[in-house]
């Protein structure tokens, strides 16, 4: 890009941003748009971790900005970009800057990181000088070319930018040490003059890559800049070079300047101000001495910062009167849509939500289950049962209920390798599938037949109880409709040889529950069915089903709510959760045993294929 050597930035400047700085990039694009730039100023983001692209806003529409992994590639793809906004960290900013200085198409590098070792800063400055390039920083927010280009986060929010009229150039060139005060300075300039032309913060380190004087000399050469304004500070001796330059006639435009830190003389000797460079080691480095030297050289120096704006205004008005400045015309910038997040924070917009969650909130310091912070869940030993109470039932359930749920999960955790779920998991594991695939292929068998008896039993017995059917009547009706009563019957166990699992659950419920109406009903039905055959007992599925319904009643769910939860698959939920433990166990077992691909033996298959298919049509 060809432009005069005093112009580091124009309305055509293109820049790379080093680092994953999407907000800074968006702020640059917003500024561009506000200035009615033809093209965005961000050529690409340099992000070593990944390539691809990023979507950012250009006014109301979205545009793509490339992510490129290396500076070299970016420079070859976008040779017109001559600025690098280097957001690399304190540790790597030096290496990135040195690399950038070697790239011929890059001319200006803004180094944002704070805390770069002084020796590295000095080397960067010397390298840049040797190559006739510019470094702004380190430890700076950057700078802004009014109406043209903005470095990263400089100039703050869009509101600041609009209020300081940075969307169109004025007559003032401003340079300061501090970046934190640049918004304040732009505000002062905007109120006292026709506005900023260019503003630079060189950064508060002891050895900035470019100095106040470097930029003042640039402004001196720029015919669009008529008034120089600067803000120095205690520490270093750079302000004397400015005084010398004024005396030597190298700076001829009026310069209003103040060196801050005059309070240092009343502070205990070793107070270090916020900036690394802001400390006077000798009398010459004090702000008072500097202000005096500047004043002597003919710089316009206020008596305190309190008059700074008055001196600027006074000088500006004189220049207007002398015809040196023709005040820049005001223009109306386009509106930049508010970001949704900001507008919402300010209460300017609302929109209906697409999602709702009533069981868990992960925002804030610590997430909570149904209002109970997770640390309390752990400290108060909610256990798996208590957590299920919070997340499934939205209730803080009593200890015995938590224990009962734990018991159910333990009992249904596994039932051997032969049942369809475990079988499927084993076959999938042996086919070399991963944990999730193997687990899921087992879980997918859970439904009306496998594991479904829990659900069925609950529904059947509830039907009988709610319709006031006497046990005998219930058995007869089911028989009449040819429906097998779910949860009744066992291969091995019988009245004489009861199932230990069922006995445990019954005993627990009878001891802790206030009542067990559905269990009582099921046991009455069992009394009828066992008259027919000794093994038609209430089995483990049936017992779980009826007791879970009794538990829900304990937890004060209404009949309608219980029905709703059954329809939603509550019983399958317990089965899926519990049995997953076993399925995962089978998966690990197969992997550890290095079991090979399973193939079903042919002699275990009946082959009954017709000679030819039936012909139709």
């Amino acid at each position, binding site marked *: 890009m060809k432009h005069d050597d005093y112009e580091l930035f124009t309305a055509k400047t293109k820049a790379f941003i080093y680092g994953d700085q999407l907000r800074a990039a968006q702020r640059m694009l917003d500024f561009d748009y506000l200035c009615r730039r033809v093209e965005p100023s961000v050529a690409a983001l340099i992000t070593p971790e990944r390539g691809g692209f990023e979507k950012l806003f250009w006014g109301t529409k979205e545009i793509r900005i490339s992510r490129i992994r290396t500076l070299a590639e970016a420079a070859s793809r976008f040779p017109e970009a001559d600025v690098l906004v280097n957001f690399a960290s304190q540790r790597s900013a030096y290496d990135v800057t040195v690399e950038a200085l070697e790239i011929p198409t890059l001319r200006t590098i803004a180094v944002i990181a704070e805390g770069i070792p002084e020796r590295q800063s000095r080397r960067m400055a010397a390298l840049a000088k040797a190559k006739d390039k510019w470094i702004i920083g380190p430890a700076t927010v950057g700078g802004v070319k009014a109406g043209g280009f903005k470095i990263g986060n400089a100039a703050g929010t869009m509101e600041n930018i609009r209020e300081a009229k940075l969307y169109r150039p004025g007559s003032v060139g401003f340079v300061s040490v501090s970046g934190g005060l640049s*918004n304040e300075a732009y505000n002062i300039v905007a109120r006292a003059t026709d506005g900023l032309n260019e503003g630079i913060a060189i950064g508060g380190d*002891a050895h900035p890559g470019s100095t106040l004087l470097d930029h003042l000399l640039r402004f001196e050469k720029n015919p669009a800049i008529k008034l120089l304004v600067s803000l120095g500070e205690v520490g270093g001796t750079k302000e004397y070079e400015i005084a010398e330059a004024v005396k030597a006639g190298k700076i001829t435009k009026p310069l209003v300047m103040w060196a801050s830190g005059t*309070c240092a003389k009343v502070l205990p000797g070793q107070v270090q101000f916020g900036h690394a460079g802001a400390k006077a080691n000798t009398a010459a480095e004090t702000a008072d001495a500097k202000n005096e030297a500047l004043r002597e050289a003919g710089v316009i120096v206020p008596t*305190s910062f309190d008059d700074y704006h008055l001196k600027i205004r006074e000088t500006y008005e004189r220049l207007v009167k002398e015809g040196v400045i023709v005040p820049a015309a005001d223009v109306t910038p386009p509106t930049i849509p508010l970001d949704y997040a900001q507008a919402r924070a300010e209460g300017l917009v609302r929109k209906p939500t697409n999602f709702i969650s009533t069981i868990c909130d992960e925002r804030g310091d610590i997430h909570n289950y149904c209002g109970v912070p997770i640390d309390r869940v752990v400290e108060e030993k909610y256990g798996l049962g208590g957590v299920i109470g919070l997340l499934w039932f939205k209730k803080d359930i009593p200890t015995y209920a938590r224990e009962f749920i734990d018991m159910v999960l333990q009992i249904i955790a596994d039932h051997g390798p032969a049942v369809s779920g475990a079988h499927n998991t084993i076959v999938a594991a042996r086919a070399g599938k991963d944990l999730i695939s193997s687990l899921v292929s087992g879980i997918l068998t859970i439904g009306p037949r496998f594991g479904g008896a829990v659900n069925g039993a609950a529904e059947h017995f509830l039907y009988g109880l709610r319709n006031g059917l006497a046990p005998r009547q219930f058995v007869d009706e089911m028989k009449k409709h040819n429906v097998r009563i779910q949860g009744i019957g066992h291969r091995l166990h019988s009245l004489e040889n009861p199932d230990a699992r069922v006995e445990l659950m019954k005993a627990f419920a009878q001891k802790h529950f206030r009542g067990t109406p559905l269990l009582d009903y099921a046991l009455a039905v069992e009394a009828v069915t066992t008259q027919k055959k000794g093994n038609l007992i209430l089995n483990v599925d049936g017992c779980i089903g009826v007791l879970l319904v009794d538990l829900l009643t304990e937890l004060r769910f209404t009949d309608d709510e219980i029905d709703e939860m059954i329809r939603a698959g509550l019983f399958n939920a317990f089965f899926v959760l519990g049995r997953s433990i076993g399925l995962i166990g089978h998966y690990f077992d197969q992997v550890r045993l290095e079991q090979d691909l399973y193939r079903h033996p042919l002699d275990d298959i009946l082959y009954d294929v017709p000679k030819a298919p039936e012909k139709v049509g």
Partner: protein
Amino acid sequence: MAQKGIREYDAKRMLARAIGEASGNRFTFDDRLVLVTPDTNLATLEKEHPWLLKEKLVVKPDQLFGKRGKNNLLLLDADLKAAKAWIAARMGKEVTIEGASGKTTGVLTHFLVEPFAPHDAEYYLAFTSSRDVDAIHFSPKGGVDIESVWDTVVSIQIPVLADPGKIEVLSKLPNIPEKEVVAAFIQALYRIYVDHHFAYLEFNPIAFSQGKLIPLDTVAKLDDTASFQCSAQWGPIELPRPFGRPMTKEETYVESLDAKTGASLKLTLLNPDGRVWLLVAGGGASVICADTVVDLGFADELANYGEYSGDPSTELTYEYTKTLLDLMIRKPDPRGRPKYLLIGGGIANFTDVAKTFTGIIQALEESKDRRQKNHVKIYVRRGGPNYKEGLENMRRLGERIGVPLEVYGPETHMTRIVSLALEEARR
């Protein structure tokens, strides 16, 4: 985040460890050094450092101040018993040091003990850095106020981009015995100076004896921003506070808050009886507000310097304000005059002004009774994101708790609240 003075003990320890490698194993420094602190058990010192019994010793305070000889704080050529007695007599005592920049009073807490080295010659040697060059300063006249013999000092400039291993010193040294050895020593020390990110290193004097340079009085500053690359070279290092007044309880507390967060919270108490108190956001703005108090002639009334910045949480802002207010309203002005709290700041970049004001408002509300007794008047000036709401909240606070309170935004010059308060104070 800048140049930090380190103890002579640490500087010598680092140099002794590094000189071998830096000189291609040609030179060594004595690494027998002991730092005595308030926690050191003097009675058993020789158990850990048996050499203390064999050598004549040098003892001096090691607390980042010089001119120890002139201030009568240097013990030379002593045995261990005398050294212990000397330290015991001074440990924990307050002394006033007369230095180049005036008098400083502080408490003695750290002493360096090292072998006394008889020697032939005393030289001056210093390494300094400026923007474009490092400089090596050498004079054959060491051990005196170097400013008084500055015409004997040769300064060798080394461009910052030069390879520190390939500098040439010999031809530039004045005529001294065994000049080649001294030059090689200086070259090795320069390499350490660069590699260890020293920002300043001065030996006055450095002795020459039996073909060896021996650092006697050593002053060193490190660039503490380089700690991420130098932790191995530096070893465990303490960056002590400068000698002088110990921190107050409140300053220590604010420092502990500051250490806990990425934000910045600073407080220096200047004059607890002062009537102008600063609660200013931002490093630059806080300096300028303090400047303006001084420039307008109220240096004597400036109670504190401080700042908060980097978007501190509401809680931290609250704690900071509470600490400051507590100092401010501890006792009313003896003449019953009002006190001024300046809640200032420039136009913030991205800090939510309303949010940071929340903590300040909370602390102000809680301090109601004592604040009224102290006749506190409050001036507010701030801009930036959400400033209108922040300022409005401040105004409402004023009405709610009945405190005289003036509120200004970006339309008012940043330091105007300083001059307003001082104009009123002057009346």
